[in-house]
């Protein structure tokens, strides 16, 4: 039951920044509400003020720049799914966002919300991290851009200061990459990932017919206190002289070892670790790098 809280509805980003610079009570932003309202129901005391930013148009824009796409933190998942830029170049993001919750949830939940909630299982987070996304954090007197990977410090924990808000997600443009996202859940839809993996990869064929990895980014979800990059597996594949099935198999083993999962009500640690490798293998296969 929701009770004992108040809602502030600033009409602009500046007003929002002013409010959070001066607020003393514990607060949360309300945009889609799909996480915060559930938490408030479970734990009515955890927040006294909701700051409704759902009507702030500055947060709901998608802009294309020379080398980046900039997505407002208040952009809804459904909007991403309808955007041709993303459909064409960020398949991994589209796959992740399309799997979040249900149509109802995707219609209202936002990308910034999924990031701010900082769940290690956050599906869009894994996909964005595989694209080296950055985010903009603003306060009344500062504006910093950090790597998404550096934003999280633990489950539900981030470097966001009390007077800061996530305003933008900055996606570098990716050309010549293939990408994908996959997860295992307790059921096929409307589920929280028990393991997820995202991949962005660029491969070229040498004159002798062998393959070389130009660039690769692998993110793993729900297997550590935050979404993580599988740097070991990435490094191995970047350095491998011959990118073939045997190398992929070895990278999968490395990815499994990089996971630091726990056992909880959804799955167990051993299975989660092993599945990191399985998902990575499936993704490499699915994006069809040897084409």
């Amino acid at each position, binding site marked *: *039951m*929701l*009770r*004992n809280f108040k809602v502030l509805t600033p009409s602009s980003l500046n007003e929002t920044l002013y409010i959070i610079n001066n607020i003393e009570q514990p607060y949360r932003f309300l945009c889609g509400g799909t996480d915060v309202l559930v938490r408030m129901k*479970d734990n*009515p005391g955890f927040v006294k003020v909701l700051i409704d930013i759902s009507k702030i148009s500055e947060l709901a824009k998608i802009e294309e720049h020379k080398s980046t796409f900039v997505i407002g933190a208040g952009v809804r998942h459904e909007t991403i799914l309808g955007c041709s830029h993303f459909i064409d170049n960020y398949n991994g993001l589209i796959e992740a966002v399309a799997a979040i919750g249900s149509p109802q949830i995707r219609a209202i939940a936002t990308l910034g919300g999924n990031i701010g909630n900082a769940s290690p299982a956050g599906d869009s987070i894994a996909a964005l991290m595989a694209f080296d996304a950055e985010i903009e954090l603003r306060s009344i007197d500062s504006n910093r851009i950090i790597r998404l990977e550096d934003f999280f410090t633990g489950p539900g924990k981030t470097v966001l200061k009390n007077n800061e808000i996530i305003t933008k997600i900055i996606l570098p443009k990716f050309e010549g990459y293939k990408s994908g996202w996959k997860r*295992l859940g*307790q*059921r*096929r*839809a*409307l*589920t*929280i990932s028990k393991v997820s993996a995202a991949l962005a990869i660029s491969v070229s064929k040498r004159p002798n017919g062998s393959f070389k990895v130009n660039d690769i980014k692998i993110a793993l979800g729900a297997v550590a206190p935050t979404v993580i990059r599988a740097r070991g597996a990435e490094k191995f594949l970047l350095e491998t002289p011959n990118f073939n099935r045997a190398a992929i198999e070895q990278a999968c083993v490395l990815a499994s070892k990089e996971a630091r999962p726990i056992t909880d*009500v*959804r*799955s*167990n640690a051993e*299975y989660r670790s*092993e*599945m990191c490798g*399985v998902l990575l*293998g*499936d993704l490499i296969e699915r994006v069809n790098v040897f084409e």
Partner: protein
Amino acid sequence: MLTKKQNLYSVVGKKVNRVDALEKIDGSARYVDDLAFEDMLFAKMVCSAIPSGRIKKIDKSRALKLKGVAAVLTAADITGLNKIGCVVDDQPLLADKIVRFAGEPIAIVAAETREAAEEAAGLVDIEYEPLEAVLNVDDSFCEKVKVHPKGNTVCHYKVRKGGDIDEAFSKSFKVYEKTFTINYQEHLYLETQGCLALVENEGITVHGSFQCPFYVQGAVATAVGLPLSKVRVIQSVVGGGFGGKEDVPSEYAAKAALLAFVLKRPVKLILDRAQDLMVSSKRHPMKMEYKVGVTKKGKINALKVRALADSGAYTTLSTVVLFRTSVHFGGPYVIPNVCGDVIGLYTNRVPCGAYRGFGTPQVIYAMESMINIICNDMGFDPFEFRKNNALKKGALSINSHKIKESCGLIETIDKARKESDYDKRKKEFDRWNADESKRTLKGLGVSSIFYGMNLGAKGWFFDKAGSHIQICRDGSVTLCVGNVEMGQGAKTVLAQIAAEALGCQVGDINFTNVDTNIVPDSGPTVASRTTVMSGNALLDAANKLRKKLMNAAVEVLKLKVNQIMAKHGKFYNIKDSHQFVTFADLAKKCYFDNVSLSDMGYYVSPKVEYDMQNGQGEPYYVYSYATAVSEVEVDKKTGEVHVNKMTCAHDVGRVINPMLASAQIEGGVAQGVGYAIMENMVSEKGHIKTLGLSTYVIPTTRDFAEVKSVFVEDKSKDGPYGAKGLGEPSLMPVVASVVNAISNAAGCQFDHVPVLPERVWEALNEKKMRDDESEVR
């Protein structure tokens, strides 16, 4: 396909649309939380935070100081008796001095708003002295710690048939032994538990989401201290029950009624999902030790079973649920030597009770797994093996019940094989599985069941039903029955039965809400009994009224009774359908002739004789039968399972409505598949950890199998138009057939349900290691 005989009927056997469909689609259906009365208060339960302990102190002061709080009641404030046990008197309405499970209600708060009630519930300070908790059946059986002073055994049913069981095994060609375990299953009705109580005419009226309004009436009368006649229970629209609203709502209704009675104001109590998951009853987890002896020719000659059921902290319905377990643990087979012990045990966990199938899906899973093991090991065809051992007319069940009629088991086995295209699929799957490049393994699994109709020997004394039919002078008809619509389609099927008998149209029929003031106690809406019980009670009333209508028709048409046919709202000349009088005109004529068109009906289930000491006799008067075939696909790398298809052949005596019967089967499959591979209630130290829909997960349409329903109609002489029940049988074979299919795909028999991907993955790895080792050798 309809036979000639069925064509005689005008509405029975037809695809009639649900009579309650529109109100549920357009949102006009009024569930209990849609009801409101002036001056109404909201209630919230205060529940135990520990699984076992003494209550040292309850301090209401902080809660009472909160604005809007009207009362905080504890055991000391109960005006009637502090007991709620439906069958055995071991459960208090509110815990007094001792708590026996985490979530046991200790106090109840009423306040002006839901929010205040909830906040106040958190401000009731309870001091406990924790005691050692009993958290599994093995510890409970040892009785080192007693949950109740009388000991930990809730009930012990014995079935002893034939000679010495060890001697019987010594004569078996092969003997198989295995122990199985199975977890809880939560009902997860869409509408959580809820009720609304108010003081009316110096008594209490309760509205709510119930399966058994007459149980509620009894519980409220006991708790408040009123005669039954001062307690009126009016049914609201119910958003699903599945057994979870059998006895359990009585607990909440009695609490709301107590508050209403003390405060003289209407009180609404609606459980939120987390509390509902924590405190309401579940399907019994069980540990089942099976030993089966088989002859060389594939006859089961001996069966020994020991099933330990976790009943939780209180008996609730365990004694009746586990009675049914003791009848069904051997499956629908002829077994000459049987030694079975079904033992219900107290633990310091949530009480377990009624759930669609009532103590049978667990043992069906174990028994049908044993048959799968036997067939695989001895090379028997799974259908032929089952047929070879199947119950048929003249055969004796494990309880030595001689089957006299309506036994379509063998026909369900044959139809399931044919309609599932088993033989062709088996060959395809064998080829598929032999191809190592395939990512998945495919498997087929079979399961057969029987299900005793109605309440049986353990509940015959309340196996009755009443009805009231009133035909208005314009020809519209009001029906009132004592069994409830809870989404299963009862209203539609009962309207079809009444319309067929009266000769009116289904559209002429309206239902009065189930109301304990109007119909006699009709027992519970459980045990797949509503079509049979309320159907027969309606037939009893309708046949009396039909005679009066027929007499009027004889006068109008100037024909003899045997020359008149009644259907679709017309009474007409059998030989000339143009010569007719409408149902409405007959109703009008009777009205002005002062002939009463209002009558009561009553029906009592056939009496059965049963010896509880050795489990021999007639536990039920007749059985429904079914055979299911599952097709599954198992991911070799992740262990994930998808049920692709289920073919379910059911002998239901007579299908009253083919559309609803198929829908019932689809629902049973969905719930069964969830139970088999997905639903995993996790407990830690007596606390349930999966208290939300994101952790206790049930299937969505994406997880759903294609379902093919096939019917066998071996009519039951005691059923309305020959019908038997289907509500529970629809779920019962599902778990066993799905697990057998997974086991056949993976090459090992799974001994725990749910079969989660983690376990399948582990089993596939173990098998691979074994295979690799044997290759090395």
